[in-house]
């Protein structure tokens, strides 16, 4: 394997895909099941709290991403943008980490030989 895709990176990516798949499948099952649309617990408790004093929630800043394109597409756009950013830095992390490790092991190898 290359320096960019070492064992750590590969396992992390496989785990990430696995966990994401598990969450997506669970969410889909939950959505299809008799429960149907699931409210967020935060919203449920907030509603309970707001009802005790007759308050209502408002929105000061607009949720422009999800309001305009909808939540699934909004998250997809955010995910793509975040993916590019993380991907850009990922090379730094994995490559510098790998080279540092190889330097360190090379140094310790030399020290032990000396």
């Amino acid at each position, binding site marked *: 394997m290359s320096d960019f895709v070492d064992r750590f990176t590969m396992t992390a990516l496989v785990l990430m895909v696995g966990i994401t798949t598990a969450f997506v499948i669970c969410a889909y099952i939950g959505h299809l099941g008799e429960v149907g649309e*699931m409210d967020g617990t935060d919203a449920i*408790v907030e509603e309970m709290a707001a009802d005790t*004093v007759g*308050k209502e*929630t408002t929105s000061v800043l607009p949720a422009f991403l999800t309001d305009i394109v909808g939540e699934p597409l909004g998250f997809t756009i955010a995910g793509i943008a975040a993916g590019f950013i993380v991907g850009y830095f990922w090379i730094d992390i994995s490559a*510098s980490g790998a080279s540092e490790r190889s330097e360190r092991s090379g140094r310790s190898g030399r020290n032990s030989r000396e």
Partner: protein
Amino acid sequence: MHVWCGIMHISDGILTPMWCLVWYVISLPFIAVGVWRIKRRMEENASYMPILAMIGAVIFIIAVWHIPVPVTGSCSHPIGTPMAAIIVGPFVTVVLSAIALFFHIFIGHGGITTLGASTVSMGIAAPFSGYLLYILFRKMNAPLWLSAGVAGFVGDIVCYLTTALQLALSLNPDTVVSHWMMYSAGYMPTQLPLAVAEFIFSAGIVQYIADRRPDLFEVGMGGDVPHV
């Protein structure tokens, strides 16, 4: 009109202006210390920024992820900040949480007036309580995975206990304790299973990094990793 713009975190319009301000004031010193630490670490180590960006992205995603709990018929999210505190330190985690929570507003989660309150619950109470327990467990020679897992579990629960307290303090000042209990009881059926999930992924990820890439801890915590 009932506008459910924020299905995660506290929405605008719920807390009174005074309490919104109080939570902002409480969070600011923590953010200031966190920013100072980030600046110092960036001068020391060029690899710090990518790690920080990664952890920030992790918090952003984890804390906005609707995970359904079919038994209760509702969904909620883990927080990820106790795990982040173990990797980059609790003060830096406050800064990352505040940034993540700010961007959550634009996808319909939380509000700008309640950003201080959400930062206190998710960015201060959760990581600090989790991190303290992590240190305590490590000092008692508990395994790394167990210490990290307990930090994740307790941090998650503390986050929601703090949110319930924030709601009770602001909305029911005369009956804070009873309403705190009531709101906490509302959160717990969904949050407890997610706290277990938080235990599992915090334990797994921290142990995995310690096994495979312990250098990430050195970069994240500034080389001060006696507890790893």
